[in-house]
């Protein structure tokens, strides 16, 4: 089955250059070898069907109205050995801690700008910087209740941070569903593995949310604010609310009276203390941000300012996960914590800098160019896979507005085998790790492994042909 499999010049998580499995994959490798193709094929299909029947679908935009898809699932898990994971955990906690200090600093004394570590204009011209929230007293100075950090491995097998997501990271529910389907349809794969269970994770998350209630309210009324069923991450919202045992609300379910937030129930109004919001800053409150937002709640920011409600993640977090600010995160770690960063960044070129721009424009065919305010894998140039026409379009766009772009060398993302019916082929993966912050930081074991299913593709986003895998952190 793996006879034709080539690791090529990439770091393969499962197989070494000579085709031998790495030690933590040996057991699974043997099991796969013992199963006939037909059975794998049937179980592979059963897994996809299971997602559809459970209604774990996401909506694809720009297509016909009934476009609901499941995220393709591949049954070879991403297995991370315990030691490697423990190092990663430390690095993630360190990084999120520094990012939280940065946000608190930026919206208060701005010491880091005064000390000249980050150019002031980079911060204040960032479209996600919200002067409206300066000096607001955030409970526990906790701006980041939940962070999603996207990690990749380079061709040496070393983890690097590709992106921080500090606004509304999604995908947690898929981690659980991947495991659920995996256990239902591939129970035998778990034999002889001792891995971290996901069962008690929601108590950590609930504790973290309770700990940031305003004025130390005990037993706070926590709600999850969603844009509604038509949002592409709606399943995520609904699943998390259900597992946390909190109410899932839409903007129209809430109202503000006397700078206090209430939800409308069949028995009248009930006070809300903590809002785990899954709508973007711009839509939160039509009185302060986009005036025609139908998703938000009029007066919400006023209640926030009065300290009567916690909004989490904090408002204005986008200034810390901006693609340009990313470059400075290692400096932040040194500045706020006096430590060396445990997980490296990917090298980044700033196109606003004339020298770097010149280099990038001369090497467009070798680099990845990203727009600083885009996400979801859109508006990206992948040099080696691009045509000269597309490179010219980007060249023009960069010259028009260089500050909107950054460039990075093409990273040879690590790969894992993906089942293709007759055989397996190597596909690039990344890992979204989740970090929760309450009284203590907590890293969710494993995370969401995304895989670029198109042959040779580097884009793992589900909107562009990405799939998912289960993620195992071993315990022995």
């Amino acid at each position, binding site marked *: 089955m793996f006879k034709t499999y080539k690791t090529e010049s990439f770091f393969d998580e499962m197989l070494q250059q000579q085709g031998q499995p790495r030690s933590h994959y040996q057991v699974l490798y043997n099991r796969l070898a013992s199963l006939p193709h037909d059975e794998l094929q049937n179980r592979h299909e059963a897994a996809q069907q299971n997602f*559809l029947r459970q209604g774990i679908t996401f909506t694809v935009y720009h297509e016909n109205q009934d476009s609901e898809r499941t995220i393709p699932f591949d049954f070879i898990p991403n297995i991370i050995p315990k030691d490697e994971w423990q190092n990663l955990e430390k690095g993630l906690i360190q990084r999120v801690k520094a990012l939280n200090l940065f946000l608190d600093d930026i919206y208060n004394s701005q010491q880091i700008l005064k000390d000249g570590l980050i150019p002031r204009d980079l911060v204040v011209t960032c479209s996600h910087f919200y002067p409206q929230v300066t000096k607001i007293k955030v409970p526990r100075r906790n701006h980041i209740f939940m962070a999603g950090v996207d990690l990749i491995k380079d061709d040496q097998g070393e983890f690097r941070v590709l992106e921080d997501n500090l606004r509304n990271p999604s995908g947690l529910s898929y981690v659980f569903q991947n495991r659920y389907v995996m256990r239902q349809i591939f129970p035998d794969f778990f034999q002889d593995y001792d891995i971290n269970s996901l069962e008690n994770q929601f108590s950590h998350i609930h504790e973290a949310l309770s700990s940031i209630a305003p004025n130390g309210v005990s037993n706070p009324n926590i709600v999850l604010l969603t844009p509604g069923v038509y949002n592409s991450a709606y399943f995520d919202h609904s699943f998390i609310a259900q597992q946390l045992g909190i109410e899932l*609300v839409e903007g*129209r379910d809430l109202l503000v009276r006397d700078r206090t937030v209430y939800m*409308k129930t*069949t028995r009248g109004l009930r006070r809300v203390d903590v809002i785990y919001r899954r709508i973007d800053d711009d839509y939160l409150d039509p009185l302060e941000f986009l005036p025609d937002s139908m998703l938000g709640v009029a007066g919400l920011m006023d209640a926030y300012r009065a300290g009567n409600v916690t909004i989490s993640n904090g408002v204005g977090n986008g200034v810390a996960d901006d693609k340009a600010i990313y470059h400075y995160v290692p400096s932040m770690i040194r500045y706020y914590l006096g430590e060396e960063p445990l997980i490296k960044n990917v090298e980044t070129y700033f196109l606003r800098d004339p020298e770097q721009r010149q280099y990038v424009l001369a090497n467009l065919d070798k680099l990845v160019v990203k727009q600083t305010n885009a996400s979801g894998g859109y508006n990206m140039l992948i040099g080696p896979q691009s045509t000269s026409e597309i490179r010219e379009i980007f060249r023009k766009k960069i010259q028009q507005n260089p500050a909107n772009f950054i460039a990075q060398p093409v990273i040879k993302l690590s790969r894992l085998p993906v089942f293709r019916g007759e055989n397996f082929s190597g596909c690039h993966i990344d890992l979204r790790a989740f970090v929760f912050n309450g009284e203590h930081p907590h890293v969710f074991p494993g995370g969401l492994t995304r895989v670029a299913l198109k042959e040779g593709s580097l884009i793992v986003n589900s909107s562009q042909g990405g799939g998912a895998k289960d993620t195992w952190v071993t315990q022995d």
Partner: protein
Amino acid sequence: MLSRVSNSLYWMSRNIERAENTARLISVRLIGSIEHEENHWDELISIIGGNEAFEKKFDRYDAKSVMDFMSFSSSNPNSILHCIKLAREDARAIREIIPQELWEMINSFYWDVRQFKQENWSIDTIDHFYQMIIRQSALFQGMVEATLSFDEAYLFIKMAKFIERAEKTSRILNIYYYRSEDPDHNDPSLYRHWFAVLQSVSGHEAYLKRHRPFISGERVIEFLLFDDAFPRSIQYCIDQVYSVFQELENGKIEHYSEDLHQLIALMRNRFHEMTVVDALTEDLHQFLQRFQQDCFKLGRLINKTYYLGEVYV
């Protein structure tokens, strides 16, 4: 409970019940038309109140057009497909409230209905579809009973179901009564007609147990209006709505629920105090139309009392 959630529970339940009633209505007509040529397919459209929309799309009331319109048409807001689609959307909006297995059931139901639409259905095979709808609705009700806590959410589902049923029985009776008034009808065809009416609400067996195989218009009407044990008679349904309301309010009448209480009590008393003779003397159509108006008022008062409508403002 959030008002929006109650609203979704209420409409999820009504739409599934509505789809089931429509399926049974067509299925009975379909089977009846095997032995006897049927020329009254327009009655079905009248029962769901869709004549105007139907005539925009089709030239004549033939079997295939009527079934297409009632089952799959997107220009009919009460088509089975549309009802199940809405029920699924409501279920999706409250999937953190209802048990996972119930959500999966409704979700699968939706995909099955859609798949049937895509396949090329014919009059010979479509009854499988209606039987599937009826079974899935029964499964839904069974799962509600077996997996939901008997709290507010359950009560809203139950209330919606009985309101929908009562209204549908009344509409069926109202339209089918016209045909029995036609003097051209002979005895055997009338017998068949009333038997089909009973079947349309799954009441033929219960009726036979009570009245033996002696079917007369008056008795069928009495059975469908006033039987106190048959789950689709109007009196039974209204009794259920009344007791659900009592449970919701713990038997108390508060200021905010006073109007609602008054209306439900009035509707209920009317059925307990009147007899079939009264209804027929008054004129059955008038009697049923008043009841349908009351149902409409009832819906609005429920909205007002539990803020169901308000969230859409």
